[in-house]
């Protein structure tokens, strides 16, 4: 891996910036250079929200994603705006996003539902997504990712978030890729 460009997209309040921070911090602990840029609208909540993570073994000069390798979409708006066939890996929330059936690079995973049903808190869908992304793309070490989740989430929800990571990992391994 020289450089990986990752876009985490959805709506404000879905924890995308936090997911970007957790992922980048894990990559940093693996010895990589990282940059996390965030982008959101003027609304207090539910506007478009996006975190861009660059992980590289090289110096990162330009700090924003130019050609995303990996895309996560937790909302239809985000999918409509950011999806392209050029992306290597796209993970979307199966219930929030209607994705074209013919696209070969899309994984439709029930991230929010799994967060609600298997962890008991739909707010941890961002970390479920991280678990799935890392299982599919092998971005960072699991040990580093777990440490980063522990460091960056509030004590009260730490167990839930660690469980969310495992739920996401399991989802990615068991769901068949839709063609």
């Amino acid at each position, binding site marked *: 891996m020289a450089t990986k460009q990752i876009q985490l997209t959805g709506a404000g309040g879905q924890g995308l910036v936090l997911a970007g*921070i957790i992922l*980048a*911090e894990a990559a*940093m602990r693996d010895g*990589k*250079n*990282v*940059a*996390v*840029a*965030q*982008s*959101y*609208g*003027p609304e207090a909540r539910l506007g478009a929200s996006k975190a861009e993570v660059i992980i590289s073994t090289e110096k*990162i*000069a*330009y*700090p*924003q994603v*130019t050609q995303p390798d990996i895309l996560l979409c937790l909302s239809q708006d985000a999918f409509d705006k950011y999806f392209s066939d050029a992306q290597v890996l796209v993970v979307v929330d199966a219930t929030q996003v209607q994705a074209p059936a013919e696209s070969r690079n899309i994984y439709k995973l029930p991230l929010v539902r799994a967060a609600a049903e298997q962890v008991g808190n739909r707010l941890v869908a961002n970390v479920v997504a991280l678990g799935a992304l890392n299982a599919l793309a092998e971005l960072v070490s699991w040990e580093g990712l777990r440490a980063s989740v522990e460091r960056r989430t509030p004590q009260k929800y730490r167990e839930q978030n660690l469980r969310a990571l495992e739920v996401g990992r399991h989802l990615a391994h068991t769901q068949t890729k839709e063609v």
Partner: protein
Amino acid sequence: MREQELVQGNEACARGAIYAGCRFFAGYPITPSSEIMEYLARELPKVGGVCLQMEDEIASISAVIGASWGGAKAMTATSGPGFSLMQESIGYAAITETPCVIVDAQRGGPSTGQPTKVSQGDVMQARWGTHGDHPIIVLTASWVREVFEMTVHAFNLAEKYRVPVILLLDEVLAHLRENVILPEPGELEVISRRHPDRLEDFRPFADETFCAFGEGGRVMVTGMSHDELGFPAQGKKAAEQLQRILMKIESRTEELALYGAHFLDDADAVIISYGITSRAVEEAVRLLRADGLAVGWLDLKTLWPFPDKLVRSCTEHAHYVLVPELNWGQLVREVERVVGGRAPVEHLGRLDGYLITPEEIARRVQDRVQCGA
């Protein structure tokens, strides 16, 4: 060796301020600068400092000026709309020679504009936003670690020269998180204002020595033109004082100029940039050099006083000069003035709230150089 940390630009600014000895912050939260105040509200009290949320930005800068005269190293942070409100008092800080630091994390303007989008539209306002001829130092940064260093440097210059110093950040850098190793205590020089040797005949507006209220010197502070004792003065005396405070910065233009000079020795085309845009230029220059084009790059860290001599010498043999900046054309005018028609000077701007990309810059230079500009 110390460990890497993932640090946001705004956090680096706040930590740089504490490192530099800042013990007073007053502000009014505004995107994209708010995290500076959030951090300082939490951390300043732990080092014996004070963080105040004021009713608006006019009160914020006023409190900062007052705190500075109370003897504290003081700072405020804001964005465009708040920066506009502060302008009158920045002039007051300038004429009263009050050491203070004003951080402006630029966003799309004018007015409320695009509150969450990046811009470099306050470059001229930082220089000329307050009325009248006045001294000002304006610094900028491109990297998270550099935000820390420049914040420390801003305090050092403010304290050394008794002048307001503006640090221009931008939305992307303010919110950007990168892995960094920040300076350890003692690694960077920290300068504090010079106190008078003798208080009896202290003249508070004769030079850069400073005596805070309550320290024993007789101090009278007014925004009116004043003499060396601080009492109102008009005419020739007013002009002499104004010249002194203008020249204390203007005469040091060269030593104040911080910059990076890259590949300039053989450069036919020169790119001049600053702040976040410099990171796109760094990539663009790499692309262009790989293509065999003789492109050089001047990366300015000090915007004001504008380093005329430096820019002149860096563009002396250039056949083309490009100034990419996230505005409709601001610093490019200074570059045009200095180049003086010796080579075409072009501006590359954006107003849509997105960064200029390396490819845009590289394409522009390729087009012009291959056309034999």
